[in-house]
């Protein structure tokens, strides 16, 4: 009797593995395919059908089925393949520079442009004054007379 119970328990344990497939996955293959690089073809997994990419996709699918989070899966892949497996650098430590440097560059560029425009507008030549009349009073008087005659 005890042997039977043990056999049933063993069978239940053996079946528990596949049956325990994640009921509430923490991430998706579609998401991670865009975050992970194919190491041999240097594109993201979603753009690659290379054997190495297929293998990594299978590994990710397996981990998703085991309820791993995206971060856990990425950490495992980094441990296996190195940081180069990530499509984008992590948002921490020295890698933050990769995110902030371009933004800093754009801001600095905009500031430099604004400063340049401001400086240019301040140092521009003042508007030319209205030219003084080039005609002498006598000519002006004659012109006025002519105009009066025409009226």
């Amino acid at each position, binding site marked *: 009797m005890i042997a039977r119970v043990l056999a049933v328990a063993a069978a239940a344990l053996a079946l528990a593995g596949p049956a325990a497939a994640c009921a509430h996955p923490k991430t998706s293959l579609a998401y991670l395919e865009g975050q992970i690089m194919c190491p041999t073809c240097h594109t993201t997994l979603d753009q690659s059908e290379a054997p190495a990419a297929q293998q990594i996709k299978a590994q990710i699918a397996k981990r998703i089925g085991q309820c791993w989070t995206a971060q856990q899966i990425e950490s495992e892949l980094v441990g*296996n*393949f*190195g940081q180069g497996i990530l499509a984008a650098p992590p948002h921490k430590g020295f890698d933050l520079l990769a995110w902030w440097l371009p933004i800093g560059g754009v801001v600095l560029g905009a500031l*430099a442009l604004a400063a340049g425009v401001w400086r240019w507008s301040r140092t521009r030549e003042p508007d030319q004054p209205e030219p003084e009349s080039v005609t002498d009073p006598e000519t002006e008087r004659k012109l006025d007379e002519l105009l009066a005659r025409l009226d």
Partner: protein
Amino acid sequence: MTRTLKLTGQVLALAAVGGLLGLLVWRLTHQSHPPKIGGPAPNFSLRRIDGAGKLDLASLRGKPVVLNFWASWCVPCKGEAKLLEQAWRQYKGSGVVFVGVDYHDVKSDARTFLTHHGITYPIVQDGSGMIGDRYGLTGVPETYFIDRRGRLVGTHIVGTITNQVAAFHDGIRAALHQ
């Protein structure tokens, strides 16, 4: 004040250009070139996946080495696995050491591969592919021969050894006798 600002801006711009030029020069001077036959085999110290610890290529100095780059996702690698194991058993009595370098691979799959094909020689993991790059690998499988002095000898085999068996044995002999 304006003059100081202008000068600072110019210095910053020059520094940025200088930095970028420096990066370019550094990149150009640090590009890896594939090793030449007769030259030293690039050294490595990589984690073993068939056991614990690391394997340092330099520690094998004094022994001829057959260095095979492979991956579990590589179909031709499956084809040559049996032949490599046979050759390892054949030559290990002569002091030849076979080392497999698992390139860009998932460790668990690599272990399954080793068990499935009954591989018994040391295997190290090159997950990032850095060592493969140093050797100028163009794909897997590729096999190199290293003599007792740590120099690359023979003709390195690109592709599977199954259809280059003679070249494979010539390479081992070259490693043994030089």
